[in-house]
């Protein structure tokens, strides 16, 4: 199969993720959409790696997975602490600093 099709799929997934970040209101769901964007990046990297016949892209994909895992640790810690003090994970409710 032509690897370019995987790039279209990656772009589609990335767009879905970015749209989700912009329209969803629950911090956890927003965060999941960001993870979807990172995975779309991974797919693009692996597809390009296949096209160019070198391994750089696949290695970056592994690094991205580790970064995504670290981000989950930090992100969930922050979101859970917000949820425990407000009983809500809605990003609209977090508006104490709005003028």
């Amino acid at each position, binding site marked *: 199969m032509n*690897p370019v099709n995987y*790039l279209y799929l*990656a772009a589609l997934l*990335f767009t879905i*993720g*970015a749209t989700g*970040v912009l329209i969803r209101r629950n*911090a956890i769901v*927003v*965060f999941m959409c*960001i993870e979807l*964007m*990172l995975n*779309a*990046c991974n797919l*693009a*990297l692996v*597809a*390009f790696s*296949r*096209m*160019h*016949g*070198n391994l*750089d*892209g696949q*290695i*970056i994909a592994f*690094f*991205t997975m580790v*970064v995504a895992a*670290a*981000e989950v640790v*930090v*992100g969930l*810690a*922050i*979101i859970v*602490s*917000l949820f*425990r*003090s*407000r009983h809500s994970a809605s*990003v609209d409710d*977090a*508006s*104490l*600093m709005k003028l």
Partner: protein
Amino acid sequence: MSATAVHSLWTTAAEVEPIGSIPAPHIEYAQLAPVLIVVGAALVGILVEAFVPRRARYHTQLFLTVVALAAAFAAVVGLAAGGYATTKAQIAAMGAIAVDGPALFLQGTILLASVVAVFTFAERRLDPAGDGGRVDSFAAMAAAVPGSDQEKAAVKAGFTTTEVFPISLFAVAGMLVFPAANDLLTLFIALEVFSLPLYLLCALARRKRLLSQEAAVKYFLLGAFSSAFMLFGIALLYGYAGSVSYARIAEVVDGSVRTIDPALADTMGNDALLLVGGALLLMGLLFKVGAVPFHMWTPDVYQGAPTPVTGFMAAATKIAAFGALLRLLYVVLPGLAWDWRPVMWGVAVVTMLGGAIVAITQTDVKRLLAYSSIAHAGFILAGVIAMRPEGISSVLFYLLAYSFVTIGAFAVVTLVRDAGGEATHLSKWAGLGRRSPLVAAVFAVFLLAFAGIPLTSGFTGKFAVFKAAAEGGAGALVVVGVISSAIAAFFYIRVIVLMFFSEPKPEGPTVAVPSPLTMTTIGVGVAVTLVLGVAPQYFLDLAGQAGVFVR
């Protein structure tokens, strides 16, 4: 190249070379010493948290952190004295890290700024003491719900979050790598290594914890969003050039590449990959810099984060991010300058004007300084787009000058307090000059430096940046810069007038007397501001010598 050919290439390669004969990478440990020292100290700091008794942790951590930062700075100076900034500039760690003038200058600046910022982290005389001794401005127990019994018990016991020292060391390590990164993978990893600790530090305020947690969530979600865009940009640039190395991408972009295989010939012809990839990558960096279309996080995060962290973040993140931006534009994408210059032009104009104009309406000191930092990002961008050696050195000098002013200003903000903690609303600062002339005078010096009044570092920096921009053919940009400096001067002067020429309120805030730690921070800030304003030549020469990137 067809898919089967690629497949057979990999499998035969694996058969020919047995596992044992993979060549080990050659790492120049001495040239990476600044980063390694900081990472090592951060790891030791985590062990300290695990094994040292609670009452000894604070002093151990503070000692370890300051010694590590000082040792790393000594290593940077040693490398620079050894000629790595000029004649021996080279690319280390198998092409991952550049050891050259801009990298060493920015690493030195980041380390110095971090030392004085860590002093404000360690300040323990501002908050009232608990039963367990004096406390700093970080949460007693970050995991406890604000206002819960658990938190009250932790506050009563006088717990402190000494983890902030190793966390900030990790952030510093990432910042040291970020402006020196010489391939896109290192760039991305360094970005995450310094961002993730900063998200955590934002959530750790002792007072006003709801604001602090809100700031952390906003910073985290938007930061992760922007780094996802940046990663997609990296993927597209990798697809375009078939490599993540800066030198290789630069060759492919300007067409001087020699060996072209069929796959590269195929993707090289596709300008969409290059343009979209470059734009997404720039977007990620402009987000970290706080330039205007991507600045929305700045005011909220600067206001909500603990003030010492805000000062650290505002100074060190900006240095690291501008370093990476400079290297990207001057080393990787100079072949694309006709495309990115108009875009950066527009970004610089809206950043300068937007930051300065919105700052006029602010009523909170920390938000005011946040918008002022946005305007300053615009001034620095004016130097970035000069595309001349003077552009690089003026940006380096500006970052040095700006970082100390910023850390000093936020350190002064921590001193003005009322019963609820820091009194950041501007109305409470009225008449501060009558009650505490020294603190108000010091803050006035910082504000004048922000405004770019002569005899302060701000003037020298702005002059260097605008001069470089004008010589680089961006005269109109300089006009916009001067106009927005004038607008910005208005609200800085307004704060000075408020402090010195209005009557103090009866129930106004008090000015806490800090320990020598914060005094050192503020003193160093004032000293650097005045020295760089009155006798800047040595430092201008230093930045001028350091202003050449290695390729």
